[in-house]
């Protein structure tokens, strides 16, 4: 379980996050929805302990990650996988080496076991025949799926997705969202950051709407869609000018 308690974070005297509190239950998919620059990606960095915070606490499976040393934090991070917005694949390594990177680094598995794991992960993302290709030989959608395979390879309990469908065509977007749903069926906990409402509705168990570093509303998809909060209504209205989705729900 992940719990953020009153997180505040400033950068160059700008308030990036203001008293953000969030709870993500095990085995669920939580979506953090908001416009660009709202502080969504920063929340993922806070969960990983990658950025300093001004105040508050982050608990991962009951452990306060801002009160442990760097070595212990690295151990906590190994239970978390992340798919970056820009994928962050290692461009000097091929697909097989990218996917197996952290398995090989941990040095716990034999070469044969690592190869089998890579095959399994690539099969999960439907890219079995790409092992020898390099990131610059892959399309945007393929890179995203390889990034997912890499995030899953070390068997994390929690997976974080930063804008997983941004820049992808509708077919690739759907494939990625289906993969996220498939992870839920495997009992994984996911946190997805996005600004696309359709995506959020498709995958979310719970939704948190954020604006200018503050949480505007949090709850189930139905609760959020029915919310009478003026920001949420305006945000959704700008996405769906015909307001169809509100009427249907």
């Amino acid at each position, binding site marked *: 379980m992940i719990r953020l308690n009153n997180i505040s974070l400033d950068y160059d005297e700008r308030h990036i996050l203001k008293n953000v509190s969030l709870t993500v239950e095990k085995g669920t998919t939580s979506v953090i929805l908001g416009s660009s620059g709202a502080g969504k990606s920063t929340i993922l*960095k806070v969960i*990983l302990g*990658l950025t300093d915070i001004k105040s508050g606490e982050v608990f991962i499976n009951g452990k306060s990650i801002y009160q442990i040393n*760097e070595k212990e934090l*690295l*151990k*906590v*991070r*190994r239970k*978390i*996988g*992340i798919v*970056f*917005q*820009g994928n*962050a*694949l*290692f*461009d000097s390594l091929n697909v097989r080496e990218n996917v197996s*990177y*952290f398995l090989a*680094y941990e*040095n716990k598995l034999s070469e044969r076991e690592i190869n089998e794991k890579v095959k399994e992960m690539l099969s999960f993302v439907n890219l079995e025949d790409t092992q020898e290709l390099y990131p610059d030989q892959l399309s945007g959608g393929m890179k995203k799926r390889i990034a997912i395979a890499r995030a899953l390879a*070390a068997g994390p309990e929690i997976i974080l997705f930063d804008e997983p469908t941004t820049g992808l065509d509708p077919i690739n977007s759907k494939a990625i969202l289906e993969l996220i749903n498939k992870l839920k069926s495997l009992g994984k906990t996911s946190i997805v950051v996005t600004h696309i409402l359709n995506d959020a509705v498709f995958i979310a168990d719970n939704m948190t709407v954020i604006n200018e570093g503050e949480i505007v509303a949090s709850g189930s998809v139905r609760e959020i869609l029915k919310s009478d909060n003026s920001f949420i209504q305006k945000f959704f209205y700008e996405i769906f000018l015909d307001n169809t989705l509100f009427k249907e729900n």
Partner: protein
Amino acid sequence: MILKMPIQNKLIKLYDFSMMIIETIRDFPTALKNRKDLLNEMYVIGTQSFWLVFFGGLFSGVILAIETGHNLEKFGATLLISRTISLGMVRELGPVITGILLAARTGAKNTSELGSMQLSEQVEALKAFGVSPIEKLVVPRVVAAVIMFLPLTFVADMAGIIGGMFITNTTFHVDLVYFWRTATDVLDYKDIFVGTIKPMFFAFFIAIISCYYGLTTKGGTTNLGKNAINSVVMSSLIVLTLDFIFTKVVWELL
């Protein structure tokens, strides 16, 4: 406040840099764990810098021979050229030329590689997956530099002495055997020790400065370019400063 900010920022950077040095030294033993990266870095430094260092050393020795030869010739002391070249190359020019050339070659490579990894979130990815960038990226580069700078300095020394020897022979008619014998006889343990220890310190600081500038790259490609320049400039200055410290302080202590 306006005046204070740059100083505060500089102090913070100095603190971060000092912490990076401490962490790198602390993580030195992990170089064995990442031996594939270490060997790769050693190979890159060794093979790609060999000819650069060779010609740098060769021309330094040749120029030194011509310049000192013309002056010593006035006093009929051309037999002393070999001593000057040998001591000059081993104690000063060999390490400094190698240091400055490698500050440009290896320093720019490290900063641009790590800087582009930083900008494309690859460094964040390492941290996010529980891998220390110091352990994985910095230590192999620093250890590889410390190991490889010594043989490269030896290459520069030898190229300089041999180049100087041929110029001295053809221009000032000093016998090759005599040149070689006096060039080697004049060197004592102190000279060889200083000539050996210098490249190791130069290598350590060049590698760590270039890694620091790479890992602290922010913004975009313009800043990456600026950091690569700063890395080379700072590394070159450190080489010259350390050389002065070794010549003035360490030499007197020995």
